[in-house]
């Protein structure tokens, strides 16, 4: 839950007065709120927790950590299919397919 994943800022824009950025986590991209690291620039690395950049990180540390998280399956845990995993763990059918939204 408290895991923060490193990624690289690839784009920055503003939404409703709040700085937002697109972050690339070793191939997976997400829109991330930059309000807590407002002066970060495109190309820099940051650690991201539940869609929020929390701190800058140097490139070497970021790439090392990403590789470790990839090996440990942490990226899938963070960005993967939660309903599918919960259904498998529970041994029950997925409840999210009929309604569409998940």
């Amino acid at each position: 839950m408290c895991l923060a994943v490193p990624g690289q800022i690839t784009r920055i824009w503003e939404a409703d007065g709040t700085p937002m950025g697109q972050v690339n986590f070793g191939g997976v991209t997400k829109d991330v709120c930059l309000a807590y690291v407002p002066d970060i620039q495109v190309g820099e690395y940051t650690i991201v927790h539940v869609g929020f950049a929390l701190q800058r990180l140097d490139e070497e540390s970021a790439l090392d950590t990403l590789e470790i998280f990839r090996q440990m399956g942490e990226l899938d845990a963070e960005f993967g299919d939660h309903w599918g995993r919960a259904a498998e763990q529970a041994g029950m059918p997925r409840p999210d397919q009929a309604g569409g939204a998940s």
Partner: protein
Amino acid sequence: MKYLDEFQDPALAERLLDDIHATTEHPWAMMEVCGGQTHSIIRHGLDQLLPDGIELIHGPGCPVCVTPLEVIDKALEIAARPDVIFCSFGDMLRVPGSEKDLFRVKSAGGDVRVVYSPMDALTVAKENPDRQVVFFGIGFETTAPPNAMTVYQAKKLGIENFSLLVSHVRVPPAIEAIMTSPVCRVQAFLAAGHVCTVMGFSEYPPLAERFKVPIVVTGFEPLDILEGIRRTVHQLEEGRYEVENAYPRVVAPEGNPIAIEMLEDVFEVVDRSWRGIGMIPQSGWRLSERYRAYDAEVRFDVGDIDTSESAVCRSGEVLQGLIKPHECSAFGTLCTPRNPLGATMVSSEGACAAYYLYRRMQLPAQRPAQAGAPEEATPVG
């Protein structure tokens, strides 16, 4: 040291371990606060690489696990309402309430949605102005600023159909509760790195001084954890009890001041009950007066709830480091990830889940549990 080749930098791992072995002269018990660290330790067998006298006590830093049963039951009740879209992090889906979990509420037709970011829940609220959208705001100091931002934005943008069900907890009061427990065995702490990314570590020197325990800010990767342990062992052997930062690449002493400012605006400190542990004074946050209208507990009348916790589950003792998961008679028999009695068995940061995933083949077989046997958790503090 048969696992050394699994490290990112085996030579560095060997140097750290050699130093720990060469330094350790006495037995020591240290607590890693964060469940993410517990998971990493058990998965990589780090505890098995340490000198025999060094014990890692697994701490209460699993937010999913310590969210009180009463709040889980309130979440389940709110999520089942036809006018509600209930948004949550994926970790909460299978956390057992008194009778069911969010997964079953969804199966029964409730509109439960998993979001990656709390801001996604706010987007759901904007897109569904005729429905009430509730986000389940759990977590430690790391997750509190993201959740706080949703309420700040909802107020700023006038998104009136959004509310937050808040169950936030703070690490320093938990350290105090652990150290003042009469059964405390903890002699040092590995503090949770990403909590300190937000908060810094100015709250820790008074605790280190008062309880004469080293507190070392530690990361999550195997090498980070070994470095945290190495520094802790040095302090213990030298009789020092200082706050050290073994994770400086993402932790600044002052933390993230912008995030802290947001926390102080949106939340106020309150006493909080921790599941399996009990009430810890000043250990949580609720929405401050300015944002109280966005509190889901205020918006939905879910006052009196009768909770019913498993009589067999000893997760409270696991969360306080009083027993290891396999010392619970239900571990791996009555209680498994498929049929969890406690949240520690389903959360990816729960110690029981980590032992079940990575250790159960190495552990002695459990005797079958006596259903209904009284197993009271000992409260701390």
